[in-house]
């Protein structure tokens, strides 16, 4: 490619990049405005007056507890999902048994359920085992509903793992657990980082399940903090913007961390491979 070609490429990439950064800038400006500015002015106009009180309002709304709940519920669900999905994918793609295609098919069907048809049955089930208003119901629901998609993503990578590695390990007398936890899991670190990012975003932003299964304030998560500003006839959009900005910071940081892992993991596993 010539110099001109590169210049053009970078121009395109730069324009797309601007386009992708806009939402955050917009959201930040949004969070400092009041309703009338939000609806009437240009979306990228600076607020006439920086309404930091939106953040104060959000803080006084008791966001601290929600924040803490979001962190641990998201975290625990991610660990469970990624671990269980990796194990199942490993057994399905690398081990020899008859029903593996069928079981994989079952997981795939799990992708297809619209959550609103599951809401009432799930509520009933949790009610029967006394898990309503218990954060555990949220953790296991997130885990179950993210398992299929996580497995699908892992799948493509597991198929590309060279068989020789397993063979060598087994011949060396390595047990399956050791093979899985010590060799396969580290090798799939890049794709695991990918699934962690995806799970994190899903769990962090989810609110239908939380709203339905949880009723005590002490167990609610950040997305519920948004609901706090939606009124019967009026909605405080500035405060919602502030909540969104606060809630995006931790996942932005986690995202950057795991996004680096996607690359690091690859180079380290490439050395081994």
């Amino acid at each position, binding site marked *: 490619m010539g110099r001109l070609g590169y210049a053009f490429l970078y121009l395109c990439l730069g324009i797309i990049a601007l386009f992708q950064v806009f*939402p955050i800038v917009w959201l930040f400006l949004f969070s400092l405005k009041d309703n009338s500015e939000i609806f009437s002015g240009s979306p990228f106009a600076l607020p006439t007056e920086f309404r930091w009180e939106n953040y104060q309002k959000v803080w006084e709304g008791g966001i601290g507890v929600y924040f803490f709940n979001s962190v641990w519920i998201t975290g625990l669900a991610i660990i469970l999902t990624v671990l269980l999905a990796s194990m199942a994918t490993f057994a399905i793609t690398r081990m020899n048994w008859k029903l593996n295609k069928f079981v994989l098919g079952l997981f795939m069907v799990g992708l297809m359920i619209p959550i609103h*048809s599951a809401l009432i049955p799930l509520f009933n089930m949790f009610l029967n085992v006394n898990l309503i208003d218990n954060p555990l119901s949220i953790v296991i629901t997130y885990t179950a509903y993210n398992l299929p998609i996580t497995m*699908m993503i892992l799948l493509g990578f597991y198929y590309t793992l060279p068989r020789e590695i397993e063979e060598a390990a087994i011949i060396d007398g390595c047990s399956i657990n050791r093979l899985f936890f010590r060799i396969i899991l580290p090798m799939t670190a890049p794709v695991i980082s990918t699934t962690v990012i995806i799970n994190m975003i899903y769990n962090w932003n989810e609110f239908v399940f939380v709203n339905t299964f949880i009723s005590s304030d002490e167990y609610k998560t950040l997305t519920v903090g948004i609901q706090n500003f939606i009124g019967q006839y009026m909605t405080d959009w500035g405060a919602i913007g502030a909540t969104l900005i606060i809630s995006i910071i931790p996942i932005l940081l986690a995202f950057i961390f795991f*996004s680096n892992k996607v690359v690091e993991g690859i180079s380290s596993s490439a050395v081994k491979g």
Partner: protein
Amino acid sequence: MNKVMSNKLVIALYVLPALLLVGVLIFIPLILSGYYGLMEWDGIGAMKFIGLENYSNAIRDLKFWDSAWHSLLLAIFSTLSLVIYLAISMILASKIKGSDLLRKIYLIPMLLSSVAIAQLWIKVFNPTNGMLNSILMSLGVDSPPAWLAEPKFVLFAIFVPILWQYAGFYILIYYAALKNIPGSLIEAARIDGASAFQIAYKIKLPLIMGVVKVTIVLAIVGSLKYFDLIYVMTGGGPNGASEVMASYMYKLAFASNDFGYGSAIGFLLLVITLIVTVIIRKLTATKEEIQY
């Protein structure tokens, strides 16, 4: 080797926890919703068994088929847009300067919740002071359309933010897949004098084909049950012009108090998704690899 890799106990141990969770929390509700579909039930009072009436009504329900068509259109567009995401990922994964930073920036919108994305795009599409129409008017378009209000535009207008919302998701997956390709293969091809385009098409693409097929399934399944932005931005309107299967189901079950019928629609949504997925898998399957 074979003996170790077919240890039934280990297989059970590895698969059952996940299967149990999915079985209990997804399959039981799924079966129950199929069962509620056989009932006349407002979700409040007593249930009355009416056999397949809800299902036969649904099959004759033009609104349902409209919404199914809209969902299918979304699935087609989502699948087509994978090409763009793949191209962007290829550029980002190649060794150009600044690709690391660019990649992170490109994925930012994906972190936003649907609430934020909906608000942003409502402002983009605002008929009088929205960004899109401001640009169009400055380009000399006299009376640009009110995108979310006109039945002939609304569906396509709303596809844009949906596709944009998911761009990061697919770029992330493709990027990881591309980085997984051993550098030695690409180096060898380059020494043989292959151009960047040839390397992409002849070497990289076949190597990540497995991942691409997975993303096709994900795009289709995700589109067919898509709900979020449509519900917030248009509520399926005007008059059903942007209704999709999931929003139609939700309205029936939760707004019209027709939980039995809504459940039947939800179950049909699953059946349709299943059929489309099977067809796609058949179409994309190659001889040596009919694996997933």
